[in-house]
């Protein structure tokens, strides 16, 4: 089966500056792909190229197996788009927005269910709606035609946790139905909850694109040790796969990549361990490693 989204060496330059450089990713049907990076890393530029708002300097975007430059805008019948930055017509009501969508895309049977699910007020002008309600409206507009691809730029920014959870449930349901989701986010917790695969972008370049389970299995452990007294830091810092994160008089926090045994062996020899806590690194820890 062809990829829903495939980018090949996608590059965008603004003047002399690379906003996105040689970005190659592929997203399968039913996959939820999280696109992570701080502000200015190139996430929104990538999304704008996927949506054909801006054109790449070089490289190409394929949607549903065909280059976007060849297939035309009919392909957008199968794409839902949501950006927390995009705006609505302030003098229109939610109802007017949805009617306009239906005039362009055709009637949708899902609209009423989505309105009920989100409890959207239909006859209030958009400029009177709260930011949460505006986001609900954008979400309904993106979902009402059962898209095969949902492209979302920070979909839950500024939303309350209940609504965030509702959105996460919808994304999981869409994924089960075979739709692909491409979403950028700052929220690691959100990405961990809903995404199957994660791409981390740094200064316009993809630094890793892996299944979330693989990222977790990078086998990075965070170890927190509390000693009964003073301890010899050099004993641990010289172990090759150990990275010292934090030390206090009696406490040591380290990252151990790979085999834990050399560290545990040295720790056993010290004979003064009062407490120990070992856990797998979170996505945030992984993310921060790329951004050090």
């Amino acid at each position, binding site marked *: 089966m062809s990829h829903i989204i495939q980018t090949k060496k996608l590059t965008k330059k603004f003047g002399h500056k690379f906003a996105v450089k040689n970005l190659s990713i592929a997203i399968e049907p039913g996959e939820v792909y999280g696109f992570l990076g701080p502000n200015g890393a190139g996430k929104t530029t990538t999304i704008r190229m996927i949506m054909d708002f801006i054109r790449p300097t070089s490289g190409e975007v394929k949607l549903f197996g065909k280059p976007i430059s060849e297939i035309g805008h009919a392909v957008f019948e199968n794409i839902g788009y949501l950006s927390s930055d995009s705006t609505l017509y302030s003098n229109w009501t939610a109802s007017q927005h949805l009617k306009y969508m239906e005039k*362009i895309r055709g009637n949708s049977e899902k609209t009423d269910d989505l309105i009920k699910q989100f409890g959207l007020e239909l006859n209030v002008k958009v400029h009177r709606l709260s930011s949460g309600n505006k986001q609900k409206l954008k979400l309904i507009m993106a979902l009402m035609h059962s898209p095969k691809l949902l492209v979302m730029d920070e979909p839950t920014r500024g939303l309350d946790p209940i609504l965030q959870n509702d959105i996460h449930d919808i994304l999981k349901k869409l994924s089960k139905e075979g739709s692909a989701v491409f979403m950028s986010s700052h929220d690691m917790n959100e990405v961990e909850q809903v995404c199957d695969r994660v791409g981390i972008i740094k200064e316009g370049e993809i630094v890793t694109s892996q299944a979330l389970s693989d990222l977790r299995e990078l086998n990075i452990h965070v170890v927190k040790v509390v000693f009964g007294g003073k301890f010899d830091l050099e004993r641990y810092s010289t172990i090759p796969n150990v990275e010292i994160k934090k030390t206090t008089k009696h406490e040591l926090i380290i990252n151990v990549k790979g085999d834990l045994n050399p560290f545990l062996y040295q720790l056993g020899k010290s004979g003064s361990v009062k407490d120990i806590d070992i856990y797998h690194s979170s996505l945030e820890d992984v993310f921060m490693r790329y951004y050090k």
Partner: protein
Amino acid sequence: MKVFIATAKKDIFARKWSLITYCIIGLGLAWLYIAIFPTFSKESAKFNELLATYPKSILEAFNISQLKMDTLQGFMSAEHFSLVWPAMAILLAISTAGQSLSGEIESGTMALLLSLPVSRLKLFWSKYMAGMIVILLFTMITIFPIVPLAHWYGVSFTANNVWLISILSFCFAWAIYSLTFLFSAIFSERSHTYFVAGGIVLLMYVVKIMSGMIHSFEKLKYASAFYYYQADKTFVKGSLDIQDILVFCGVAVIATAIALIVFLRRDVSV
């Protein structure tokens, strides 16, 4: 076609209050001039004498060289079509075209439109035609009622000239609209579009005045749209110069073609 109609309708409805306001003012002023003309015409001989003392270059500079105040056409050419109507048409054309593309990009609503299964080509034409309809409605609503109003006030009048001034006025407004649409396709902020388009129109007006007053600038008049908008000749004498129409149509077609190419190729960062 339904996409085209839905988007064009959306844009026309978005402009409805400004269109209604402009139409009421334009029609109200036309009504006012027609209403006061019977009184004014009794004193028209004095005005004609006064106008005869003006240098010909001044009258040409303000497009009122054909002026005879003893007819409704002459009176309205001087009072309405030499400055007020074109000024209103320019404001409406610039504001409509500026909002169409750069306005939607600036406000961010263009993202909503570009994410729909509508090609940029269709989007461009639906927006362009919506503006054209606004301009056409303004022209028709503010000029055609002159005939029944003149009849109502018992003023003798050549009705055929209304058709001619409507054609000339619409083509003038169309050219300004298309030129502004080009800047609207280029810029992402309305203020830039208004500034450049407004600046060019103002410059063309100054050029027209200067070319009439300063002999060495005479040939510059050909660079001004106001030179081709000969409302007095059209409305008073009933003579529509095909060259003027061709210039307006040429500017409109070329500006629209460039605007289309720009809009199809440009990045829209919304």
